[in-house]
């Protein structure tokens, strides 16, 4: 897939290099949705995800980054997004939505509510835990890649993921027990 990311000299300095427009469009098409999803679920805010995704691509291009492979480019992009998220969380306190549940939902509605509960439960996790879960379970990055993106030690990822999952499961259990009591 390296050929997708043809590298050429940029006209601004004559020395610096980066990806060309066609390669960028290709990279954007393959990564925009996952990247947006990562930021949206880490922040719990779609509008912030719009802004930060765009900024992540701008930073990638401004850095004149030379990717070695498609995975390398994706990892680099997610690392930029993680840094942007860190800056975002530094400046804003995360919203604490109450863990409540509407009783008496069935069928596909139940699935919709489960997703709603997941979103709310995730907002009760630390930003780092949300990032870990998304990178590990949705993007399915390896532990080494997650460590690179989040700036952590590879050996600690398994345990951190386990703890984040345990915490999320407990939060979801809490929501479910609320539902049972409501019936």
């Amino acid at each position, binding site marked *: 897939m390296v050929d997708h990311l043809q590298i050429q000299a940029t006209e*601004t*300095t004559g020395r610096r290099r980066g990806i060309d427009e066609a390669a960028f469009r290709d990279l954007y098409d393959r990564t925009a949705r996952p990247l*947006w999803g990562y930021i949206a679920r880490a922040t719990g805010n779609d509008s912030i995800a719009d802004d930060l*995704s765009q900024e992540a691509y701008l930073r990638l*291009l401004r850095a004149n980054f030379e990717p070695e492979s498609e995975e390398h480019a994706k990892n680099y992009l997610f690392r930029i997004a993680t840094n942007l998220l860190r800056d975002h969380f530094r400046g804003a306190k995360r919203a604490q939505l109450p863990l409540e549940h509407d009783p008496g939902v069935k069928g596909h509605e139940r699935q919709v509510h489960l997703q709603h509960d*997941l979103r709310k439960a995730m907002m009760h996790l630390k930003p780092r835990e949300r990032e870990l879960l998304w990178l590990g379970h949705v993007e399915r990055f390896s532990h080494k890649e997650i460590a690179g993106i989040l700036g952590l030690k590879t050996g600690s990822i398994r*345990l951190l993921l*386990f703890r984040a999952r345990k915490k999320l499961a407990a939060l979801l259990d809490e929501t479910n027990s609320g539902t049972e009591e409501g019936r």
Partner: protein
Amino acid sequence: MRHQPCTLEDCILEATRSDAMTEELSRHLATCRSCSDAVSIDNLMLAEASRLPELSRLPDPGRIWLQARQQRLLQAADRATRPIRAAEKIALCTGAVGLAIGTAMSWPVVRSWLGQAVTTIADFGGATEGSLPTNPVPVIAGALLFLVLFGLYSELVEG
């Protein structure tokens, strides 16, 4: 309750994701809380990812490319003019220091000029050449302070 991840967790996740669950792994999954949590959360997270809205809200990649190009050009222009700005600052400092030294060295002459200027201003509250300081240091220090403040203000306006 388990405080360490299960050693079979990766195998279980891989098997459920690829729909290749064996009898042995199924038995383990039924009894292991850590693995069942991992599988449940994996499924929920994937379902959540599949429900993400379409990306019509994000701008066209061509627009981002052009914006980045514009920013790169601005950065390049900023880098190119950095020596000019540095030279301007050095010239300003050199001029200020030269002026201060010149004023200090020929203070009696400057003092006499200032005195003449003061006396030609009609309503100056009775100030005369005699009321001007004989020591040039406060005057020079005041002038330098003014220059420093002016320099900081210009830097802020530029920034």
